[in-house]
């Protein structure tokens, strides 16, 4: 008989069921913190209103390719609302809710997808990383940030997000190794939305969970229902404050579903059954929170109507701001390349300003 020298388990957390009921004991205090839950609900609805409008802008030729966040609102708001300003967020490219929580403006997001670098000079914390398209590279930037904070003795935490697809990349696994080797103050969230463009979760690997990849690297790792804002936000708070207190990094796999196409350039009906999407709509995060708040008398139709109006107004203001911005100056192609413009590039700049004006 061989001796067992290691074994593992992955705990799954859910406190709010898809039909809006609380389950389990040891309920986080957030479940009864109705002010916070109402705030989160409002913000999740606003984010979805924004998302719908962004897609409409793309469809009418007023925005470039856009990556929708439909269905991810609880994951994103859980991340952003659990962080402190001085913490550092290294997103991928659709975590708008998390960024809004940190002060990034809706118009910043539109500027980015609208083809304007000024979007990444956003209104959120100046130290937060910008959108990260190459997949999973942001995990190592978060690890680097966490290492910087640790070396300087600053009580700050770096938080990053990767998808189920991105969890297959070396960068993610190397970030786990770095977080483990250096005991970094960071949280790695796997936003498992079941689809990496057209490749389903089952084709990434046959591991029962993606969280267990963190365990393989020596990190505390859990799985939560990412459509349950109570579980997701609780898990983020625990992991972030644990990291801040020197308890090291955590991997949190949040189970959710990409209700939209991958981006506006994608058509998910080519590779995904509509029945699967119908089932996913019954799990989504906003309805279940509304059901719960309504069932305990903390939400009603009047508040909902007011929220709808408020969300529409916020989005429409952002769109106006975005559409009014105009093109950046020609010189902006050159002026941010280096702290000081090299000689040859200065010549190219001068000529461009002459030829392209």
């Amino acid at each position: 008989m061989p001796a067992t020298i290691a074994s593992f388990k992955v705990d799954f957390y859910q406190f709010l069921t898809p039909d809006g009921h609380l389950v389990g004991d040891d309920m986080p205090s957030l479940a009864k913190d109705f002010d916070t839950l109402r705030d989160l609900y409002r913000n999740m609805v606003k984010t979805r209103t924004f998302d719908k409008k962004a897609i409409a802008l793309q469809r009418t030729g007023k925005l470039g390719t856009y990556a929708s966040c439909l269905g991810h609102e609880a994951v994103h708001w859980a991340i952003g609302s659990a962080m402190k300003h001085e913490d550092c967020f290294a997103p991928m490219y659709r975590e708008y809710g998390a960024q809004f929580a940190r002060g990034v403006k809706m118009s910043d997001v539109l500027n980015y997808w609208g083809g304007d670098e000024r979007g990444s000079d956003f209104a959120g914390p100046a130290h937060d990383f910008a959108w990260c398209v190459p997949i999973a590279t942001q995990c190592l930037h978060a690890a680097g940030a966490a290492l910087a904070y640790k070396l300087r003795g600053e009580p700050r935490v770096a938080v990053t997000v990767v998808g189920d697809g991105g969890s297959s990349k070396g960068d993610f696994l190397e970030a786990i190794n770095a977080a483990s080797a250096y005991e970094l103050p960071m949280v790695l969230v796997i936003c498992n939305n079941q689809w990496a463009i057209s490749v389903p979760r089952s084709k990434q690997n046959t591991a029962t969970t993606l969280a267990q990849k963190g365990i393989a690297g020596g990190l505390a790792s859990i799985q939560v229902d990412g459509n349950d804002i109570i579980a997701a936000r609780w898990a983020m708070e625990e992991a972030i404050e644990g990291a801040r207190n020197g308890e090291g990094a955590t991997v949190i796999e949040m189970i959710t579903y990409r209700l939209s196409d991958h981006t506006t350039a994608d058509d998910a009906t080519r590779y995904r059954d509509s029945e699967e999407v119908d089932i996913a709509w019954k799990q989504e995060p906003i309805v279940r929170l509304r059901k719960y708040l309504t069932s305990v008398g903390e939400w009603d139709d009047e508040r909902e109507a007011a929220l709808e109006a408020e969300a529409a107004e916020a989005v429409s203001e952002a769109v106006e701001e975005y559409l009014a911005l105009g093109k950046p100056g020609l010189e902006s192609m050159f002026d941010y390349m280096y702290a000081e413009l090299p000689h040859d590039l200065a010549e190219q700049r001068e000529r461009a300003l002459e030829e392209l004006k």
Partner: protein
Amino acid sequence: MASITMVEAVTMALAWEMEHDDSVVVLGEDVGINGGVFRATAGLAQRFGDERVIDTPLAETMIAGLSVGMAAQGMKPVAEAQFMGFIYAMVDHMICHAARMRHRTRGRLSCPMVLRAPFGGGIHAPEHRSESTEALFAHIPGLRVVIPSSPSRAYGLLLAAIRDPDPVVFLEPKRIYRLNKEEVEDNGEDLPLDVCYVLRDGTDLTLVTWGAMVKETLEAADKLAEQGISAEVIDVATISPLDMATIIESVEKTGRCVIVHEAARMCGVGAEIAAGLADAGLYHLYAPVKRVTGYDSVMPLYKMEMKYMPSVGRILNAANEVMEVS
């Protein structure tokens, strides 16, 4: 003042800057207690501790990604790729992030990191350790690519690279790590980046080169002098951004130019220099611009490596060819 080798000059520059700037950290594989496989970080871990001289797991992508993250958060990481042949796993972070960080955030974030790597042939190293692929990085807007060719320039240019507010790929020609010693004062004085260094004045011919090839090129210039040909020798030092002005100024005087580099010819930095001369120096040229380079073939394993690399003889052949055109 100490008489030191080029690799010792690298160590001396790292130590000076770590002593004077707390935000400087060194990271890489075996850079800690082992002092690096070429000894470039020898003694630094003992002096500054393992929090500032950081041994990494064996993961090049991690080294680059951590450096980008640290640099964006106010540190000045000096990362080491153990050999340039292992740098390709780092290229994603250098191109997609380090090079673009300042630009894409409109200056909100920047990436003041240095990526050091020993490169080039001539030390009988195993496979993947002898190539010269500096042109890959020179092609990327937003990066600086700096190559020293002597102990004093290694010291001054590395200090400048660490102090530079933007990412620098600092490639160290390992064939000349211990080739000769030079008196280098450990005074913390850097040397300017983005400029060529004129190593020898001449009137008949301009020889342009960088890195380890400076040795063969200077030897060729000596031989040419014996033939009565006065060759100017330019060490490009920063291959991107390229200081064409100094090269053009020299060619305006000499009217002839031979470019020497160890890297393969196709799209090598020599091609950019030749194009720059065709554009701005053509009417001063008496003869075609010649390149003496590695071949467009895979760098051979070590039995044949010296045949691949430009020799004094090949440089002289090209020099004599351009001198024959009147």
